[in-house]
């Protein structure tokens, strides 16, 4: 299960937060844990350079893209490698939507589209689509070209 997708700005404010199968009372804890993890480790990291951590049986893969930091949390079959696959899809979809690694402003400008992309990529904790060109078409309700 992909437990959480969290996108924050450079100051640690949450921009997008989607939890799956995480009890409501634990979400705040996760949020602050991830934000702290980012604050401790993401300084000076290059765009899309992946960082990885694990906490008990849960894996975390996170990175920076422009002004935003992206965190994925998963367990069981969503281990560090599956998460890195998923985060790759998310970063490429974000770059696609924003045209470049986004500033916070650009991210918020494209917020609706980004939500649609995430909806196509992760559905209730399962990875659904992995190809950015397909996602680009799907959010405009266009069928994919390739099969």
């Amino acid at each position, binding site marked *: 299960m992909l437990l959480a997708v969290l996108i924050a700005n450079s*100051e640690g404010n*949450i*921009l*997008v*937060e*989607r939890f799956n199968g995480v009890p409501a009372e634990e*979400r705040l804890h996760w*949020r602050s844990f991830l934000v702290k993890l980012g604050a*401790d480790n993401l300084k000076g990291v290059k765009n899309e*350079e*992946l*960082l*990885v*951590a*694990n906490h008990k049986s849960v894996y975390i*893969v996170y990175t920076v893209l*422009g*002004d935003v930091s992206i965190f994925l949390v998963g367990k069981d*079959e969503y*281990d*560090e*490698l*599956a*998460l*890195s*696959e998923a985060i790759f899809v998310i970063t490429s979809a974000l770059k696609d939507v924003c045209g470049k690694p986004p*500033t*916070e*402003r*650009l991210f*918020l*400008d494209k*917020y*609706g589209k980004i*939500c*649609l992309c995430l*909806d196509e990529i992760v*559905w*209730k904790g*399962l*990875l*659904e*689509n*992995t190809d950015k060109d*397909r996602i680009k078409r*799907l*959010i*405009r*309700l*266009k*069928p*994919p070209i390739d*099969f």
Partner: protein
Amino acid sequence: MAAPLVKKDDDRDEEADYSPFLGIEKGAVLQEARVFNDPQLDARRCSQVITKLLYLLNQGETFTKSEATGVFFAVTKLFQSKDIGLRRMVYLMIKELSPCADEVIIVTSSLMKDMNSRTDMYRANAIRVLCRITDGTLLTQIERYLKQAIVDKNPVVASAALVSGIHLLQTNPEIVKRWSNEVQEAVQSRAALVQFHALALLHQIRQNDRLAVNKLVTSLTKGTVRSPLAQCLLIRYTSQVIRESGINTQTGDRPFYDYLESCLRHKAEMVIFEAARAITELSNVTTRELTPAITVLQLFLSSSKPVLRFAAVRTLNKVAMTHPMAVTNCNIDMESLISDQNRSIATLAITTLLKTGNESSVDRLMKQITSFMSDIADEFKIVVVEAIRSLCLKFPLKYRSLMNFLSNILREEGGFEYKKAIVDSIVILIRDIPDAKESGLLHLCEFIEDCEFTYLSTQILHFLGNEGPKTSDPSKYIRYIYNRVILENATVRASAVSTLAKFGAMIDSLKPRIFILLRRCLFDNDDEVRDRATLYLNTLGDGSVSETDKDVKEFLFGSLDIPLTNFETSLKNYVQNPEEVPFDINSVPREVKSQPLAEKKATGKKPTGLGAPPAAPISAVDAYERLLSSIPEFASFGKLFKSSAPVELTEAETEYAVNVVKHIFDRHVVLQYNCTNTIPEQLLENVTVIVDASEAEEFSEIGTKPLKSLPYDTPAQTFVAFEKPEGVPAIGKFSNMLRFTVKEVDPSTGEAEDDGVEDEYQLEDFEIVAADYILKVGVSNFKNAWESMGPDSERVDEYGLGPRENLTEAVNAVINLLGMQPCEGTEAVPANSRSHTCLLSGVYIGNVKVLVRLSFGIDSSKEVAMKLAVRSDDENVSDAIHEIVASG
């Protein structure tokens, strides 16, 4: 929104001004949502409002029931619009709102229409939304369409239906299970993602049917799997099949191993890694099987991608627990990871190296770690400290450098948890390695000279009080202890006073000087410190009231002989219902609640393949000793030699849970039956165990101690005592029957009826075996201990152990038979070795030290031969050990 895009490095405040969501407020957005009701829909405007709503929801904002209903109804109006972008937003919005059952009806017809639309994308999205919000009854109506969708030629539609199926399987399994033909067809799909989703769903549908899973794996491993993701799933399912089927005994081959091995050459890294991990987790994996997997993991160690490095080192770390030798090839690569930027990777590398390192590499490794420790966070440091602790227990001869390392890091900056881990480690090393005691205590003393944690200071002072007086020169510790009285806070001062008193009680020569120090404490400004000083001065004989030496020691060193949780409960009860009579400590129940049933069930549930390291043994002996000595009937039996681990006499989840602990004395054996009544409607009284010892001829029953009453869920004990010939390791088999009077309990009032019925309950048999008479006591340096025993008492003989699966099995069998402590890590047999030497030590009944050297060899027909050499203080004991092996 005409503001120019700001550059990243512009002023932050300025940038915030431009945020499109600046000052966004729920009430206002809900007002804006009214545009959804306009007769002339403005699609662009509606999309913007939905974006705002999504932003709110994604920020963790929640809508009340009526707000959500209002938004939901408004959103459904948007189905009238033909704007594609807006429609996509509407789908997402409905899913996010997840309306309740009675509202769903509003959108079902619109969604059903979309589901049969000619536009593929409408179909896919409508399926996802419908499945998200649907319940069982609606599902049966749309089932037909879903089945069609699974085999739809558009992969997006098929995937949408399949992923919906995975979710619906949780809520409506019986419906989804009917789709297996379609799903089976989808598994053969040419579209990679469809195959991936179909495989996941098919496996979930069939996961309880082993044969079906086996067939699925067999056919797919021969066919083509297009997506790497699906390939990973297949590898997981394959290893599950392998786990359940075991090794082919005729050829010695493992089914599907070739498939896993071929995956190591796949082009996708995730498949390679998955296969490598699956191989390392195979049960009883051989070196030959392991080698190719280790080789690819080793390549990953030097990958440029941190995720791969992390995955590889994490897997190797696990392998190192069971097959340290297999991982040693990677040591050079792993050493370079110590300086990895990612601290998780570096820590894993260090702890793996600590597991695989041999005695000679310890010093070099410690040097590397020292430089590494300064720049990692506390939580990683704790992991390293724990790894060093186990390394030290493995190589006791290296205690000096490891202890020095621990004391060095103890002096550096660090938080409480970290310091506590170090102190705990030093304490454990002092307990387990006698040679390390003096230097360890001094390190602790130096630490408390400058320790900011009251908890740790008091713990160390307590420990020092127990261990310090037993050292060769106890007086050197006094300075450190008395410094605490001068320099620290009241809690630490009080502990220091107790510690001083312990030294005074144990060492007569120090007593007068201790009195001087204690008298100074009488002027302390804290009353607890003054009280303690007064109390100890009097008990130790400085004042008018003086106690006997035995009482003093009992008072100072004896711990509270009642379980603290029970004590706490009793005190709480007393405070809640105050009585005239003062609180009586003897009224606190002494029964320890046994392990909850739930935990018992959990064990052995999931085989991990690698096997978790055994749990640390808990010293229950003290508790048993106190419990037994509090029973007058057993007080004359003398000193308790050994208490066994509890042996379960009932299955889990039966009406009554009973286990037995065997207490061995010189001339007696006491059987302690721990009973738990798991039926709330019953009260058991006069509970005894009727023991049939006809198959244990040397034992004669001399008494029982029945249990008066056994209420629901309150564990309690009944005892049966036997006499046996002195010092003889008598063995035998015991059959047991639980006998009791059962009374019905009214669940509403909790009161039992007056009349009861006699009843019996059959328990399982158990045996007293030779191992019950040998204490597991390790020695720090086996070679020295062996040579100091001298060859006179040595007895050597050879035994054939018959055919065995491998040497590990043979070694474990002999260790279990003798019940002795394996030394220097020799219980671990390197995989596939043909011969092995195992060193054991222990104390035989009558307090006779025994050392055993076992040499094993296995031939090509798997016949195991063993040479057993025994040395002990008493040659009769050496003979006895041989007898145990000969008759076992």
